[in-house]
């Protein structure tokens, strides 16, 4: 059918898209060059820095080392769908309140990682009550993204704040 590889259907930010790309083309490049979703950034290309972090079925995943073919049947969510100025995600609100980003390049990935981290802590049973606010140590251990501007302290505070409010 296709001379490049696979014709595949993906679910990106709630819409079905059909792409025709080389086998094993990383999800990052599908998002950026095939779909024009430029919010997700390329950093190291080796899954180390986390600038390319997106959600796959709600879990944070490095899209630069994720073959697009591996997310067929899953839901992918990018920074473009996390929130909007009118309706910001709690992470985005606390990011603004605490003036977290400096240059901002790593921040889409950072926020996706933070949002997934908070979502994973939410109670799954009705009787379990609200999750306790995340501890600093928990944030440090769970979010491994790199920020070259060194905004870690504000990032940590913003995650704890969003986790406490939400």
């Amino acid at each position, binding site marked *: 059918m*296709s001379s*490049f590889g696979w014709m595949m259907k993906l679910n*990106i*930010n*709630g*819409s*079905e*898209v*059909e*792409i*025709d*790309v*080389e086998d094993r083309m990383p999800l990052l*490049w599908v998002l*950026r*060059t*095939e*779909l*024009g*979703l*430029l*919010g*997700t*950034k*390329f950093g190291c290309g080796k899954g180390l820095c986390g600038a390319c972090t997106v959600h796959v079925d709600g879990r944070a995943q490095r899209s630069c080392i994720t073959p697009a073919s591996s997310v067929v049947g899953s839901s992918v969510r*990018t*920074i*473009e*769908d*996390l*929130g*909007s*100025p009118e309706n*910001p995600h709690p992470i*985005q609100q606390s*990011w*603004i309140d605490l*003036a*977290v*980003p*400096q*240059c*901002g*390049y790593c*921040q*889409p990935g950072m*926020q996706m990682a933070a949002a997934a981290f908070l979502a994973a802590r939410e109670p799954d049973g009705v009787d379990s009550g609200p999750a306790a606010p995340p501890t600093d140590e928990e944030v440090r251990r769970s979010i491994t993204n790199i920020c070259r*501007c060194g905004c870690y302290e504000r990032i940590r505070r913003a995650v704890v704040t969003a986790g406490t409010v939400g």
Partner: protein
Amino acid sequence: MKFTRRTFLVSGLVAGGGLAVGLCAGTVGVGLHDRRAHQQDGLDGEGVLVALWIEIRPDNSVVVLTPHTEMGQGANIALGQIVAEELELPWSQVRVEQAPADRAFSNGNVIQGFIMEDDVLSGFFRRVIENAFFLAGDLANVQMTGGSTTVRFTGWRSMRMAAAAARSVLVAAGGIRLGVPVHELTTVDGRVVHPKSERSLRYGELAEEAARLPVPQDPALKDPEKYVHIGKSHARDDIPDKVFGRPVYGIDCVVDDMLHVAVVGTRSIFASVDTITNEDAILARRGVKPSWWSKKEWPWSQTIHGVLSRLHSPSSSPRSRRPTPPNPRKPFCQK
């Protein structure tokens, strides 16, 4: 105060009838480098800009043009604060814009500041030195950001003086318009005010007139005791966009006929590339242009070669059926 009139102020009309105040190195007595002419050339053509401008537009907005890069460090906010302070502006009236990458914006002041800090020079020697620094700035075509120079030199030294000079000519223009002596006038919130008669004029109304007046070389600077912007924290206006993944970075730029190049070096120094063993396989890939280049005369004798390719760009994806992105935005960049 250590400031020693090491710059001379010039002013002029810009297209659209605004007042612009900039700084130039000494032009009197020494013919080494006529900064003033250099800048005034820029006033003739539309969109041509000169060093260290503060532009007052007829709609009363004040635009600070900065020759420095804002990458989230807050430099633009600091420059805006300095100008707002000396010009007696409400924060909402100030805008900071990036100066174009033009030689007219080369910034010798930064070089001088780096080397001489606030050393005081005098007389003829001073002018020679100043000219030399601006000439050096022009030759190097310097627009640089680093070492806190934006605030220490461009902001605190140059833009503060330019703003004070702008205020001075606006007051003078207000005096002429209202027919009152200058010492009876004051400036409040972007207006020249005459308290006695309770009359006032917006800066925007006076800009054209003010631009025709001689610019003071030694404008009075505001008493730091009365600062309302400097020393306060103003919110950075670049943050909301950054939180929603919206800024356009270099990697997001798409221009017509853009090609990407994959650069590969040899693995050891002094080695060179004869053939690319998988060249056929590379050329067979989608979008790869049937040409690669090789640069053998690299300074460290290492051969660098690159493969040109046209990746799918968002504007020309030929094969995939593109969805409407939930938050579509067309990346663009100026050439």
